[in-house]
């Protein structure tokens, strides 16, 4: 790892570790002070000037710490706004991957659904038919919802609201899938850590659970799935740095969803009833892992997309297409 990347990793771990029990307001101040949302922003605008591989460090850490703030979303929003040449003013910014409505000049009428921390954000970056818009939360009528992990996922309705907008080449749903893939990898890392730690301490039949082969074999699978999700995240973020990452994002979200599906089951099983309590920390990870499998597209969604693509290319092109992604 480069020196700069090590610095980024250290800062991220420190900040996200510190704010675990802090209020959203206090958390966001720490995040802003450390410049974590600007990891992809270019250096001229005071950003870190990083790559997507750098961004993965932050996004993965958000998963690891089950961070209760829209930091991955803010990284993406900041990046997209910059790519579109739209300036963002200070304040919490989030994204919306489910936007409907119309832009008429500088006026937006429509609905933004599933907005992470929509009720708290100052701005929301969304895409409507190739146009990026930055809407102000103050102009919205807000309907509060939450995902299974109790993270805000709000619906914001706008009626002729003034928005900044510009054309941009981007697609929000794959971008959200990419973020969730990174977060899943981080959360699985932590769930594995907790599971190994717990089974080494918990004694039954006169010895630690970790000494039972039945437990060892399950934890090995948990480790394998965690490794697969980590690989999928690393390779898809790297593909973003190369350019077109549509294939990788589809494959990575499919694989990390599967990993999350298998791994949450194992993590809970080896924790017994303790892992099912509100007090113990496992659910901060597993409830997010359940939510994130749906957000950014589930296996059915990406399976159909990838399957359609592969079938259209046919049997003879399959392998050449697959290896071309790395060459």
């Amino acid at each position: 790892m480069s020196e700069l990347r090590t610095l980024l990793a250290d800062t991220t771990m420190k900040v996200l570790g510190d704010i675990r029990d802090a209020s959203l307001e206090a958390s966001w101040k720490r995040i802003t002070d450390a410049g974590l949302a600007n990891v992809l922003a270019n250096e001229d605008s005071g950003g870190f000037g990083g790559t997507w591989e750098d961004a993965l460090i932050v996004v993965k850490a958000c998963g690891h710490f089950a961070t209760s703030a829209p930091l991955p979303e803010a990284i993406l929003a900041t990046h997209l706004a910059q790519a579109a040449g739209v300036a963002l003013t200070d304040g919490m910014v989030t994204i919306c991957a489910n936007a409907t409505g119309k832009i008429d000049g500088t006026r937006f009428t429509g609905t933004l659904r599933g907005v992470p921390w929509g009720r708290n954000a100052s701005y929301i970056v969304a895409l409507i038919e190739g146009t990026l818009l930055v809407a102000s939360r103050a102009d919205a009528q807000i309907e509060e919802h939450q995902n299974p992990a109790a993270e805000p996922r709000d619906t914001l309705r706008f009626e002729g609201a003034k928005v900044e907008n510009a054309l941009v080449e981007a697609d929000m749903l794959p971008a959200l899938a990419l973020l969730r893939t990174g977060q899943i990898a981080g959360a699985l890392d932590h769930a594995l850590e907790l599971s190994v730690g717990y089974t080494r301490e918990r004694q039954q039949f006169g010895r630690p659970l970790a000494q039972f082969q039945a437990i060892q074999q399950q934890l090995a699978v948990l480790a394998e799935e965690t490794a697969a999700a980590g690989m999928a995240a690393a390779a898809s973020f790297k593909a973003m740095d190369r350019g077109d990452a549509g294939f990788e994002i589809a494959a990575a979200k499919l694989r990390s969803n599967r990993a999350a599906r298998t791994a949450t089951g194992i993590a809970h099983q080896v924790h017994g009833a303790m892992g099912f309590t509100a007090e113990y920390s496992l659910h901060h990870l597993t409830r997010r892992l359940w939510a994130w499998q749906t957000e950014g597209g589930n296996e059915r969604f990406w399976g159909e997309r990838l399957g359609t693509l592969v079938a259209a290319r046919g049997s003879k092109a399959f392998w050449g297409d697959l290896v071309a992604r790395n060459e």
Partner: protein
Amino acid sequence: MRKFHFTPFEMPEAAKALRHEVRAFLHEELPKTAPATKARSWSGGDAEFSRKLGAQGWLGMTLPRKYGGHERSYAERYVVIEEMLVAGAPVGLHWVADRQSGPLILRYGTEEQREKLIPRIARGEAFFCIGMSEPGSGSDLASVRTRARKVEGGWRINGQKIWTSTAQHAHYMIALVRTGDGETRHAGLTQFLVDMRTDGLTVKPIANLTGESHFNEVFFDDVFVPDSMLIGNEGGGWQQVTAELAFERSGPERYLSSIRLFLEFLRVVGENPSELEKQLLGRMTAEMWTLRQMSMSVMGKLAAGEDPAVDAAVVKDLGTSFEQELPRLVQASARADVTLESGDPFDDTLSYLLQSSPSFSLRGGTREILRGIIAKELGLR
């Protein structure tokens, strides 16, 4: 607790051109066989084809030129072997020699052994088998009882190996045998190069459930092996064997064994797949993409001189689970006209892989052993 770090590997520029070269060669030289035969790939063999690969410079690729190798990169070798597997080339005869015996001899062998054997491996003329399992010693490899007794000028081996793949075609076996009773179970084991034509050595093929014979029993009745054929250190066999494992467990053959069926499925599904077929294609593609990234990550570590044995165990368990599940999933979603009756290329391929797939998670270290290795790395045992 140790964490697993799989990092993306970027194929070097040279890989692309080499891949084209290999494809062009396969287009010309690959024996025209049915898909079900191609599905055998590294379980099948063709001595003439092996020699052609040798002539192309595609065996012993990473080994030094002075022993007849080609000093190519690990990545280049990787490209060649994955193209062979995907094409369904009959590469089984030289597979072990190229993958692990050559590198093992280079690393632990004497100068004489290197000069004598590596050039023949690189030409596709010397085939190897691995003598590890015994009737009483499968997953518990350290319990091997085949014994070598020191005699004038060499050793006399007595005992029996079993499940030895391609022993009936191999010129040499690299056998792990007991030469002493050390303080631990892992001590006192030694590797020998055994010429398969030696007096007292008998190979008896064992038919597997499909009726084909890939693995064998090998009997040693006072088989003489000269001192010059001991590999590495007397008593160092265990360490040498475990050093091979990263090579043995991380390659593309650990997730591509059912690729022929995937390609056949894609062919019969055509351009208008059903929703169910799209789902299956999408998910299997995602698995293969991820496994390939992981397998290449291990290759990158091997190339950098690391020993990623546990990473390789992760790749093998995930990879073989995938290639084993693939025929079952394809069977479950195949259209009603797929009857599994012989005579159709798709049905024959599915039928063969359904039956051969149990071996995928046995050969080269069982699933349970691999998971035990991973658990140990996690600090659980």
